[in-house]
């Protein structure tokens, strides 16, 4: 992976509550879905930060907040020191050049009534000063070539391509403005397994070529491990553990991470028998009414009285090398070698 530089994306105490309202004429707020509740992290130049967690833990909301597609309830997102969360108009448009997105579903993320050339060329039409008019078609062909598509297919429509190829079109669109950061929201989970590797490898190659930094959101732990330098684990809107890829996968300290990792399928039958499976009971609690203290305590086997009273902050715990949000953080190897 590329050499690490200074932080390019700084996220601090990011919070997004979606209000729950009742009534048609007189709207009354009766509560809030705490989709993202105080997430902080840095992303360095050329680095990949993987974000994992189960469905509904706030991963996709986090992606939308980073892209300024949703406005945060509080907290800040800075790109190169510039505040995104409150940027508007021309300022927001300028910021967006530096952060782009690859979406989950390649079947709905491309306008079915636009040609591939128009889709990949649209960034140049929106940001007209990036490429002079006569140059745009050449740039589009170049981009298609970069992502491994035939540039002669510019006049085709999305439905004429396979899922993997559509995802490449989406990646080409994201690359057009030469952003420094790309937020990948489950970029491969809608693809066949055989195609997933191709797309992940393409993303890795583009990272080296253009020095991109990725926020790579996925629920597939092995895909995240493959591409990430650092990994953050989310549970119910909170980051519960954050560290280098080897730290998270080999020496997880948060019980939730340990449970997640113990569920990864092991190809070697011998290892399968020796390893320890941690079975979590129950469903994650509702984000509209999260438990007090530690949010994981309702499903945690270590839960004690303090967990219900005091919320464990995400910080480096004694005896461990990386940040964890557990009062009883301790290393435990759950993935057999």
């Amino acid at each position, binding site marked *: 992976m590329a050499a690490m530089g200074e932080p390019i994306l700084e996220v601090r105490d990011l919070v997004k509550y979606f209000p729950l309202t009742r009534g048609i004429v007189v709207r009354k707020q009766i509560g809030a879905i705490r989709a993202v509740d105080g997430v902080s992290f840095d992303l360095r130049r050329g680095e990949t930060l993987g974000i994992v967690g189960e469905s509904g833990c706030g991963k996709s909301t986090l992606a939308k907040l980073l892209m300024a597609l949703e406005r945060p309830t509080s907290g800040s997102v800075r790109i190169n020191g510039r505040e995104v969360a409150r940027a508007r108009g021309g300022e927001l448009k300028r910021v*967006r050049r530096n952060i782009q997105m690859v979406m989950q579903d390649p079947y709905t993320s491309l306008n079915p009534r636009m040609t591939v050339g128009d889709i990949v060329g649209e960034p140049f039409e929106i940001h007209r000063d990036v490429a002079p008019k006569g140059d745009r078609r050449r740039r589009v062909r170049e981009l298609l070539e970069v992502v491994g598509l035939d540039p002669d297919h510019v006049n085709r429509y999305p439905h004429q391509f396979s899922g993997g190829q559509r995802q490449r079109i989406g990646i080409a669109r994201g690359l057009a403005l030469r952003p420094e950061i790309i937020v990948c929201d489950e970029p491969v989970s809608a693809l066949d397994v055989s195609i997933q590797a191709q797309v992940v490898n393409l993303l890795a190659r583009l990272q080296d070529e253009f020095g991109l930094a990725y926020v790579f959101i996925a629920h597939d732990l092995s895909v995240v491990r493959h591409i990430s330098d650092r990994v953050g684990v989310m549970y119910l809107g909170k980051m519960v553990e954050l560290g280098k890829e080897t730290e998270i996968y080999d020496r997880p300290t948060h019980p939730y991470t340990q449970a997640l990792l113990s569920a990864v399928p092991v190809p070697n039958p011998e290892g399968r028998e020796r390893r320890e499976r941690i079975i979590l009971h129950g469903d994650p609690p509702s984000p509209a009414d999260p438990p007090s203290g530690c949010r994981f305590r309702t499903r945690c086997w270590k839960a004690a009285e303090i967990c219900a009273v005091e919320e464990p902050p995400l910080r480096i715990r004694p005896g461990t090398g990386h940040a964890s949000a557990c009062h009883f953080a301790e290393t435990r190897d759950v993935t057999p070698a």
Partner: protein
Amino acid sequence: MSDTLAPAERPQNGGVGGHPGASRPPKAASLWSDAWYDLRRRPLFVGSAVLIGVLVAMAVFPSLFTSVNPFDAATCDLAQARQGMSAAHRFGTDNLGCDVYSRVVYGARNSLVIGLSTTVVTALLGGLLGLLAGFRGGALDTLLSRITEIFFAIPSILGALLILAIFRTGNVWTVMLALAVLAWPLTYRIMRAAVITAKGQDYVLAARALGASAPRIMFRHILPNAVASVIVVATINLGTFIAAEAGLSFLGVGLRSPDISWGLMISDARERFLEAPWPLLFPALFLSLTVLAFIMLGDAVRDALDPKLR
């Protein structure tokens, strides 16, 4: 990496009447240029366009089609009333002994103008307001939707009667206005629903992430994906409007003799239909042909605008 994908790169609909890739125009394609390229090769489109062309020519230059001027009372002969088809009167004669063929030709103008103008006004007004309401949502949407509900509550014939009674004169434009005022809420509803569906798609989110302006998102991403159902409804409504004009004429608030329209002819002829069917059948035939031509045109345009159906 691309070599592993080669088989999938063939267009999947190649066998279903898709055009061969090699003969495509080499310049940059767009939805509209591709649609036009496709339309010119569609028999349905060419057929309906020719038919519409003939009807429009009839409306603009009726004297090209007949030498008889039906506005001249001298051409009618009461002694010749309700005659069948003959060399002198190709479509026979009506209750007053006037030549049905020349009346059908001259009636095309009023019927087409009412049908087309009402359709255009309805589609533009309902379509634009629906696009705006669906896209913006919020208070604007609530306001416009409640207004349309008021119109839905008015029985259309009663409403048109009221509007035309206010104007006191039934001419082409007041009839058009009465029909359009009552018909736009339906188009609005359909457009609004289609826009709301399209607005939630990921490609709209992707465009926003690129920094696309609201007009760009509305007209480039949402409208092309929402316009299909409006086109279909508009072309079907066209026939309804021409027929509704007949209804209003029958009630005495639409066009009046000596004006000529297909609707007027149909309503004049219905009392003696069993005795003399021609004065009713021929304008009805032309009305049906017009409606059919526009429905076919609408279908062809809708299909051409959907890349998956090409």
